[in-house]
């Protein structure tokens, strides 16, 4: 089988699965449609594995031409290289596990088949996104995942209590993503007019041949691309949709809003590395945005009480960290962190899903506690996830974070300090979450406590698998410290992607790396000890909303960011809409038009008076007319 066949099968599998479920799912038994949904993704995963074994240099597969003009043409083609295959591996791999998890989680939901339809379509769109061989196809996938995300966030749109807020969250996500999409569209325009093509391979070749570009053009293109990335990857200023997106079912949060879709922005920038390398200013902007996002989101996560909201802000914060890596030009490191983050964040979300499932859809950690006895598997896997994200030594998060931090330290020690604050806060809120959920005494109602149960195997199996990967994921890209031969395997692997091999980064020297690792480990372990002391020994619990003091309130209310946006953007636009409708449209234009009509009427009324019905006056007018006519001719004649 050639590459192209595998790729087509790979793409068709989720599409067919989605279509089958969508068209016939209503009449299929739940078990079957769930198994079908999971099965196609797993088969797709196997396809990707086949690709993974064979790929060594970029292969472009042309499918068809969409639009052909003299000045440019738009094609559908796919690019199989290390980067796209690696991303596909994450998508289908994690996707399979999450599908499996969903089979248990969504068991009682009446929209079961619909859920799997959407999930499969999402995987399809995501694969299009990462496998696309040009920006145009990427845009197809880009919008596709946005739509699927919209559908899945608003999955319970008709819920009597939360239906409206769910649909509002979905709308917010879609609209904010649309802002980013507009950026991507402009990037496409500028790329088209600069290069005449949108193919990654062609553009990167042109650039490596040394095609000169105006620096403003590059700046524009990269800024537009980055705007798109901020939309999808929830960076400042477009991050506020992600926490709201937690309205969707938990597997959705795990798949879309932690592991795959939100990393599309990272992928986009990594894919466009050849452009970003030419725009140092953009890179700086990327760097600072990443640091700011990471810091603010971590701060906001400190006093969230919804188990999923904590994880959402943590996702934003981690994405910020990846963006920092991108800003430093360490694209492979960013992808490495994408990978490990996909492992442990999917694990954490699924773990929280298991908790929520066991607690009968209670998400407030203030009503949890002591769950480790009843949910042992969930507890242990969640612990691994927590340790991984907070950078506990030798777990996956430790390595990936450390590389980013190491690069940052090399470049700018001050920013290193700033980002360490974010890392510290990450450890704090994650341990707080963990201890409040699983330790201490149960704080919910008695009847709930009696029904809390461990989840079925379909849900725990993915947890176990993911916890293994979370623990060992660091092996993919070990620093040169341990094995000189096997070190930086992933970075080396990804160098095959277009443009990547041109980017050379010096890894920090031995002693610095060791020092930084020591600091990070110390931080993580220190926070663990403090949190244990605080939450388990002293039994601290999360305060109620009223009892929060100054900074806690700020954190809990997300720095009032949504309120700011509401006040600065939403309200003015709504005001504008209202005023335009009532003042300009109704009072201005419409009455202007009817004013013209009335003017005509008035003029007619005035002229009507002349028609007074008296023959003699008509005759007088006639005489006057005759006089004027003759005078006119006399004057004209001479």
């Amino acid at each position, binding site marked *: 089988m050639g590459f192209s066949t595998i790729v087509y099968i790979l793409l068709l599998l989720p599409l067919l699965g989605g279509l089958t479920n969508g068209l016939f799912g209503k009449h299929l038994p739940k078990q079957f449609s769930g198994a079908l949904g999971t099965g196609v993704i797993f088969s797709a995963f196997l396809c990707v594995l086949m690709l993974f074994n064979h790929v060594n240099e970029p292969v472009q597969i042309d499918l068809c031409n969409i639009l052909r003009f003299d000045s440019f043409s738009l094609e559908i083609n796919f690019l199989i290289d290390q980067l796209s295959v690696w991303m596909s591996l994450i998508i289908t791999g994690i996707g399979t596990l999450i599908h499996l998890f969903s089979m248990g989680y969504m068991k009682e939901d009446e929209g079961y088949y619909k859920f799997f339809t959407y999930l499969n379509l999402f995987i399809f769109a995501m694969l299009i996104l990462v496998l696309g061989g040009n920006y145009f196809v990427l845009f197809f996938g880009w919008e596709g995942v946005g739509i699927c995300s919209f559908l899945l966030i608003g999955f319970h749109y008709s819920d009597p209590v939360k239906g409206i807020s769910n649909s509002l969250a979905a709308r917010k996500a879609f609209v904010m993503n649309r802002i980013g999409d507009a950026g991507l569209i402009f990037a496409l325009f500028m790329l088209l007019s600069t290069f005449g093509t949108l193919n990654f391979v062609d553009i990167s070749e042109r650039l490596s041949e040394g095609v000169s570009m105006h620096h403003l053009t590059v700046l524009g293109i990269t800024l537009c691309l980055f705007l798109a990335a901020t939309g999808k990857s929830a960076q400042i200023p477009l991050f506020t949709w992600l926490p709201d997106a937690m309205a969707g079912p938990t597997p959705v949060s795990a798949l879309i809003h932690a592991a795959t879709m939100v990393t599309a922005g990272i992928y986009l920038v990594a894919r466009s590395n050849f452009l970003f390398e030419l725009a140092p200013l953009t890179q700086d902007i990327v760097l600072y945005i990443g640091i700011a996002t990471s810091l603010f989101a971590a701060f906001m996560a400190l006093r969230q009480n919804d188990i999923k909201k904590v994880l959402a802000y943590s996702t934003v914060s981690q994405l910020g960290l990846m963006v920092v890596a991108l800003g430093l030009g360490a694209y492979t490191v960013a992808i490495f962190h994408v990978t490990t983050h996909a492992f442990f964040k999917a694990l954490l979300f699924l773990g929280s899903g298991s908790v929520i499932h066991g607690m009968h859809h209670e998400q407030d950690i203030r009503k949890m506690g002591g769950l480790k006895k009843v949910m042992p598997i969930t507890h242990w896997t969640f612990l691994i996830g927590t340790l991984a994200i907070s950078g506990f030594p030798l777990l996956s998060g430790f390595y990936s974070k450390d590389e980013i931090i190491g690069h940052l330290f090399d470049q700018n020690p001050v920013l290193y300090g700033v980002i360490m604050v974010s890392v510290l806060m990450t450890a704090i809120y994650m341990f707080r979450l963990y201890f409040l959920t699983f330790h201490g005494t149960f704080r919910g109602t008695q009847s709930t406590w009696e029904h809390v149960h461990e989840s079925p195997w379909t849900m725990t199996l993915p947890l176990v698998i993911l916890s293994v990967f979370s623990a060992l994921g660091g092996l993919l890209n070990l620093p040169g410290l341990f094995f000189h031969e096997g070190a930086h395997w992933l970075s080396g692997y990804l160098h095959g992607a277009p443009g990547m091999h041109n980017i050379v980064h010096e890894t920090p020297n031995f002693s610095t790396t060791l020092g930084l690792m020591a600091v990070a480990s110390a931080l993580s372990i220190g926070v663990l000890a403090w949190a244990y002391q605080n939450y388990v020994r002293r039994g601290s619990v999360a305060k109620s909303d009223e009892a929060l003091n100054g900074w806690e309130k700020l954190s809990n209310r997300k720095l009032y960011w949504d309120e700011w946006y509401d006040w600065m953007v939403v309200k003015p636009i709504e005001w504008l809409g209202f005023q335009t409708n009532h003042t300009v449209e109704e009072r201005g234009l419409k009455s202007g038009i009817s004013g013209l009509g009335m003017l005509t009427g008035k003029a007619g009324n005035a002229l009507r008076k002349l028609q007074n019905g008296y023959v003699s006056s008509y005759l007088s007018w006639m005489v006057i007319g005759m006089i004027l006519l*003759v005078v006119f001719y006399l004057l004209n004649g001479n």
Partner: protein
Amino acid sequence: MIATLITQILGALTIAAAMMVVLSKHPVRSVLYLVVTFFFISGLYIMMNAQFLAIVNLIVYAGAIMVLFLFVLMLLNLNKEAEPKTPTLSWVIASIAAGTLFIVFIAALKDIVLVTRPGDQVAVSNIGLVKNLGNTLFTKYVVPFEISSILFISAMVGAILLAKREKQTID
């Protein structure tokens, strides 16, 4: 010379009679003055050797139409009813308008370039004689002439229909 004089006198009398038509308060007097005017105009026609028209003018206008007017006046017995007085303002406006109209017309007609004949004397020709005019009328203009009879018939029918006292058409 005498002919010129006669013509001028006829002209003056025509104007005077016409003025009386307009100015006399009594409608019957107006009618009578109009008849007089028509007689003078016929005289002018004769002076131009348009004999046929002179006769027709007398018979049709002075004879038929004016008698019709008189009949109507008498039929309706309108003599007693005094005509309401026209406001002075109307008089002034009408006079000004009429005066201006006159001046403008004169100004317009004065500049007519008379092409066919040198000199500006009205010639004495024989085309107005009954024989010549009849020739033209019954050869070149025979169709319009016949059509005019249709016009008369329709006018007759219309007049009868309008003037007939019938309940369903009136009130």
